[in-house]
């Protein structure tokens, strides 16, 4: 109930400033009555509990002024008390309280300037009253804030955007802008307006000042020189749009303005700034004639030159030449509108207000409150249609830019049926070989440039029925069991759709319109959509309807396979002019006053994302109806589109020539855009930059010492990174990116140069990742070899010892004979050596690989291929006997499921029996491990063979140590099976199978518990 009233209050209130918007028309009398009506309306709305109270207050006011003054704030307070938002909206409440205080503050101020107000008022203590009106009015706004969402958002947004410190100021501004707004309508009083005006412009200029400070303050090296008299000149206030239609080009260093500031200044007043001089250029702004290309061209074309002072004068003059009146009128209007917009978020209610505003204002006030309730329900239907939906292009021609792509898509879709359906029905799609004829199309491009819209529109236009599947649907692989898709899963229904002839072109048979499947966001197919892309490809192959796939990043790894099956159409970002045109169209339709320059700025800021531009526009429309260049600039300055900065772009920017101008937070943003990759890129590329801070540096000494500093800083970053990763000291992440990216970048930013012949002058990808993985691989290989060497039991060397000391000799031992000795002798020698150290062929390669250095000849160079082949062959011959020696090879064998080989081969080499036993001992553990995993069938084997083995028991073997080992092993049974398996394969070689037998008894006993026993010792 209360809420209802509140919202109606909101609407009623909304009506009020609207009236103020048409000040010229409204007579002062009328205006008064408006106020009055409104006031009462608002009172009525705000609180029915306090209505009488308030009324009293008002009466009292009329009688005795002073008490009224005191009471007004009180009343407003009381209202607030009443207006308190429902529980659970604490934040709002706080805000309310805040504003409350602000109000108390503002009242005295207003009272302190009664002369102005009195002047503007039309007798009868209006000054007070207007103050009162204002307050109640503001109260209402606040009240509505907590209840009717749209209004609340508009307001909240505003205060959110202004810095906390300036928040109060904002409120003050607003309250007294409303006020002059009302007044100005009757009597243009420059004084009061001036205040409002300045208030409004204060924020942007303040912001600019800060920006400039940022530029100058932190590590500003090199680049374009700072303006000699930076910040010394006062920037004049000009008439809005005084430069409209003029085109400027800025050249060289200006006297007092940074170039960015100068551009902003020109744009603010509606001028256009271009990069190079052309016929259209009106002025070339430069303070010193530096004989550059621009000035030469300008002279050729006869373009007028303009100094900075000239520019400023121009702006200043415009202010004087035009009467102050229109501006004054304009400004307050600007400011009034926001509040009106705030509370009229829905087109419906706006229309309503609009229609009402033509009627008498008094009527308006009351009717607003009366009909608002009704309106509300009406409004909600259409209200929350975002502009992006509302102004979605309706015909393909509406699409901004990319018309060629649209046409291509159109052609493709139109010819689809002829191309695929007819042929495929007749002769199995022979025509598919037709170059360029792809059954599907892949649209790619950055978000918000109309891919989905295009797809839909084009299909619509050609009379296709669209089925859209996007990331919100489950797009995993269709369940094969469900087969031809009667299942519920979307994937299956896709299958159904594409394979269903009925939905195809066969118009004679089916009344269905043609269908097209739009797979949106295919690059978003992720973990959940298992096999999604593969399935999609399969679908494309069998599809009887066209499929349009849409993605953002065509080069995504996921889409690699898909790309081959699709006609690729990539959307480009529309130009800012194109966007601005469209935005202007929207703005006009919505009744927003925006100039084109501002929209161009917006288009530029959002980086081609039309959707985002519209969202921004809509958002701004909530708080203002006239949007100027500065507004956009200000709003988007900090929160320019959070685009995905690729690490490369980030590094480019950090090291760019103008990187010294970046603010600290920008640097952090850049380096944090990918806190893992950016430091690596920085590390990879910092050497390549010729630091502009080194200035003239003949012998390169400065650069070298800068490099040393940067390198140290990068190393610091690495140390911090260890702290972060290993000890979770995430609070260091800023410091880490500071030292690993920002400091090196600020030391070395400048021109990039190439260090290698033929290198492209782009930042290389960080080499560390690749090198690190190579290193990991080599360590693994080394470890393998290490284990082999250990298994040979000739040595107990450590891994690093192996690398540092042994490797040279090993490679010499392996390669030298091949180079020196005759073939057969060499081969024999090498193979023997390899055998004695259990070096496998892989290890041989490892040795060569690891001991090879770039620029050094490989020891195997110049060796005859025949010799190499002979070596391989000789090694292969011995393979069977060798496997046993390369103990850890068991892990590999296990994978093959042929672990039995190990023992088998042992058996097959009787001559080496003694040595073998020892090695078998070395093997046992791994073998056992291997079996743990396949014990299921191994067990059967075991039982089969045990009898076999029993017979062989007598043939004892000498390896006591081995036995001891066996005994001590929990799961010894397992390895017994191996032996048995082996014995079976190798026609039961006595010794080993007997050995197997002996321990096979425990194995059988332990059969059940084996799984658990071995699990604890599981091998990889």
């Amino acid at each position: 109930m209360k809420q209802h009233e509140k919202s109606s209050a909101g609407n009623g209130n909304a009506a009020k400033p609207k009236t103020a918007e048409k000040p010229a028309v409204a007579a002062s009398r009328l205006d008064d009555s408006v106020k009055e009506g409104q006031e009462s309306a608002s009172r009525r709305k705000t609180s029915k509990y306090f209505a009488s109270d308030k009324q009293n207050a008002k009466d009292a006011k009329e009688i005795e002024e002073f008490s009224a003054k005191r009471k007004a704030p009180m009343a407003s307070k009381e209202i607030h008390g009443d207006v308190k938002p429902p529980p659970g909206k604490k934040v709002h409440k706080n805000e309310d309280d805040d504003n409350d205080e602000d109000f108390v503050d503002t009242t005295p101020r207003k009272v302190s300037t009664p002369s102005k107000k009195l002047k503007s008022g039309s007798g009868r203590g209006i000054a007070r009253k207007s103050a009162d009106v204002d307050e109640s009015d503001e109260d209402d706004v606040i009240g509505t804030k907590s209840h009717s969402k749209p209004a609340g958002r508009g307001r909240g947004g505003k205060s959110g955007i202004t810095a906390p410190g300036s928040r109060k100021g904002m409120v003050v501004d607003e309250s007294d802008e409303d006020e002059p707004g009302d007044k100005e309508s009757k009597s243009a009083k420059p004084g009061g307006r001036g205040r409002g005006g300045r208030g409004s412009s204060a924020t942007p200029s303040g912001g600019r000042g800060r920006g400039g400070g940022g530029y100058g303050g932190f590590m500003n090296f090199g680049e374009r020189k700072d303006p000699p008299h930076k910040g010394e000149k006062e920037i004049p206030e000009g008439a809005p749009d005084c430069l409209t239609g003029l085109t400027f080009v800025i050249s060289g260093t200006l006297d007092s303005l940074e170039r960015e500031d100068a551009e902003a200044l020109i744009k603010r007043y509606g001028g256009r700034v271009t990069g190079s001089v052309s016929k259209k250029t009106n002025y070339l702004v430069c303070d010193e004639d530096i004989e550059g290309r621009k000035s030469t061209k300008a002279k050729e074309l006869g373009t007028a030159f303009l100094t900075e002072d000239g520019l400023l004068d121009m702006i200043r003059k415009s202010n004087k030449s035009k009467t102050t009146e229109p501006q004054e009128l304009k400004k307050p209007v600007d400011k009034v509108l926001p509040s009106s917009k705030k509370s009229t978020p829905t087109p419906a209610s706006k229309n309503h207000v609009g229609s009402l505003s033509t009627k008498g204002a008094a009527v308006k006030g009351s009717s607003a409150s009366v009909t608002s309730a009704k309106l509300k329900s009406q409004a909600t239907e259409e209200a929350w249609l975002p502009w992006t939906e509302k102004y979605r292009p309706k015909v393909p021609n509406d699409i901004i830019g990319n018309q060629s792509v649209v046409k291509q898509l159109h052609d493709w879709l139109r010819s689809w049926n002829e191309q695929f359906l007819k042929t495929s029905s007749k002769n199995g799609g022979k025509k598919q070989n037709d170059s360029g004829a792809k059954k599907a199309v892949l649209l790619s491009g950055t978000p918000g440039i109309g891919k989905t819209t295009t797809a839909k529109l084009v299909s619509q236009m050609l009379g296709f029925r669209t089925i859209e599947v996007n990331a919100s649907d489950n797009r995993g692989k269709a369940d094969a069991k469900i087969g031809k898709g009667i299942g519920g899963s979307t994937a299956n229904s896709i299958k159904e759709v594409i394979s269903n002839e009925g939905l195809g072109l066969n118009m004679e048979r089916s009344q269905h319109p043609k269908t097209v499947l739009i797979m949106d966001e295919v690059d978003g197919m992720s973990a959940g959509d298992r096999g999604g892309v593969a399935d999609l490809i399969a679908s494309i192959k069998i599809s009887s309807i066209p499929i349009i796939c849409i993605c953002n990043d065509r080069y995504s790894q996921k889409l690699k396979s898909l790309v081959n099956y699709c006609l690729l159409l990539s959307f480009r970002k529309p130009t800012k002019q194109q966007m601005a045109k469209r935005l202007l169209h929207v703005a006009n339709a919505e009744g927003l006053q925006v100039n084109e320059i501002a929209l161009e700025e917006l288009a530029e800021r959002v980086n081609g994302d039309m959707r985002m531009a519209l969202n921004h526009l809509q958002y701004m429309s909530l708080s203002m109806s006239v949007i100027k260049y500065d507004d956009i600039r200000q709003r988007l300055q900090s929160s320019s589109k959070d685009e995905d900065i690729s690490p490369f772009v980030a590094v480019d920017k950090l090291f760019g020539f103008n990187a010294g101008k970046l603010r600290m937070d920008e640097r952090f943003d850049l380096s944090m855009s990918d806190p893992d990759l950016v430091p690596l890129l920085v590390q990879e590329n910092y050497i390549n930059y010729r630091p502009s801070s080194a200035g003239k540096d003949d012998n390169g000494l400065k650069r070298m010492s800068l490099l040393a500093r940067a390198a140290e800083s990068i190393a610091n970053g690495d140390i911090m990174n260890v702290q972060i990763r290993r000890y979770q000291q995430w609070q260091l992440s800023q410091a880490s990116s500071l030292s690993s990216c920002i400091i090196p970048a600020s030391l070395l930013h400048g021109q990039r140069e190439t260090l290698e012949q033929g290198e492209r002058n782009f930042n290389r990808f960080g080499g560390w990742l690749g090198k690190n993985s190579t290193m990991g691989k080599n360590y693994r290989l080394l470890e393998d070899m290490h284990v082999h060497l250990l298994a040979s039991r000739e040595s107990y060397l450590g891994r690093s010892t192996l690398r540092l000391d042994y490797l040279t000799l090993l490679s010499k031992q392996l390669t030298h004979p091949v180079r020196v000795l005759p073939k057969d002798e060499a081969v024999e020698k090498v193979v023997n050596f390899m055998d004695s150290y259990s070096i496998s062929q892989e290890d041989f390669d490892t040795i060569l690989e690891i001991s090879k250095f770039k620029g050094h000849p490989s020891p195997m160079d110049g060796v005859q291929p025949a010799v190499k082949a002979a070596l391989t062959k000789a090694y292969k011959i011995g393979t069977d006997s060798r496997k046993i020696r390369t103990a850890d090879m068991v892990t590999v064998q296990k994978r093959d499921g042929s672990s039995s080989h190990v023992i088998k081969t042992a058996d097959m080499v009787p001559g080496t029996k003694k040595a073998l036993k020892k090695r078998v001992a070395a093997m046992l553990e791994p073998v056992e491990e291997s079996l743990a995993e396949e014990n299921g069938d191994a067990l059967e084997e075991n039982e089969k063979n045990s009898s076999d083995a029993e017979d062989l028991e007598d043939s004892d073997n000498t390896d006591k140590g081995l036995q001891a080992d066996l005994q001590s092993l929990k799961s010894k049974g397992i390895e017994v099976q191996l032996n048995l398996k082996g014995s079976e394969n190798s026609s039961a070689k006595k010794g080993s199978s007997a050995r197997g037998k002996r321990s096979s008894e425990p194995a059988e006993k332990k059969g059940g518990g084996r799984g658990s026993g071995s699990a604890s010792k599981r091998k990889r």
Partner: protein
Amino acid sequence: MLWVDKYRPKTLDKVLVHKEVAENLKKLVTEQDCPHLLFYGPSGSGKKTLIMALLRQMFGPSSDKVKVENKTWKVEAGTRTLDIELTTLLSTHHVEMNPADAGFQDRYVVQEIIKEMAKNRPLDAKGKKGFKVLVLNEVDRLSREAQHSLRRTMEKYSSSCRLILCCNSSSKVSEAVRSRCLNVRISAPTEDEMVRVLEFIGKKEGLQLPPGFAARIAEKSNRSLRRAILLFETCRVQQYPFTNNQAIPPMDWEEYVSEIASDIMKEQSPKRLFQVRGKLYELLTNCIPPEIILKRLLYELLKKLDSELKHEVSYWAAYYEHRMRLGQKAIFHLEAFVAKFMSIYKGFLISTFG
């Protein structure tokens, strides 16, 4: 079979260098009470040989029967389960491993794996020896946390288990661990001793050694006996009979490092720095530990450097080596050292020669 392994003394009696140490160890074993031991000394001085000989002395020939396990341990660490792959050498009486290979997970190796091994008494039924021996290599590479957990293990299971630690530098082993061990310093053999060993091998192999050849090898080997023997054999492979002035081939990586050093000395420019980075990467990917690279690089640089700069450069090398151990990406620190050196050296050249 390589000579290093062929002529490795198998028992304490046959030890050629460090005879006194061997005697003492023998006494230690016969007294039946073996404390924890910490062997430390430079590489190639015979620590490992002594340890193996000691084990043999303790347990007899069965300690030779070793099997190699390369298995993955599953360790519960809080919420997650870690897989740690570790190679162990084990016989009935001892287990040898290199816990530092587990990298920064070494803590879990010590806490879980070593503890588990220490807990289990040897299953030797007749068991004269009531304990088993854990040989841990490269304890100086263990992280601080791992060393802390180690000392608890040492105390708690001292009844069933003896630890033999082996490392290069005792300074990197925490005080607490050191004080729980009998520290045995194995110094690098003197050149005379090495010459004696080389001549012994030469005699056994029936080789003709030109006079002074063994001494040259000994000198080249940086007082590492292992390296001396390896070099000796390399020479043998390369050329026999030996000639008096036969070149002794350097280790492949040492050669490469010295190339880098001369690169650096020749030119100090960003371009050269970039090339050096490539070469350092090459060394790193070839599994040369970064500390060794840095040390060797410094050694090579100092050889060519003006004595004025030696102190400063050594300081910076130590500085960056320390930081390299704190950090993770060794190349960053190596490069920082090279850049620093270049900057210093360049400044020096310019100020001296203009």
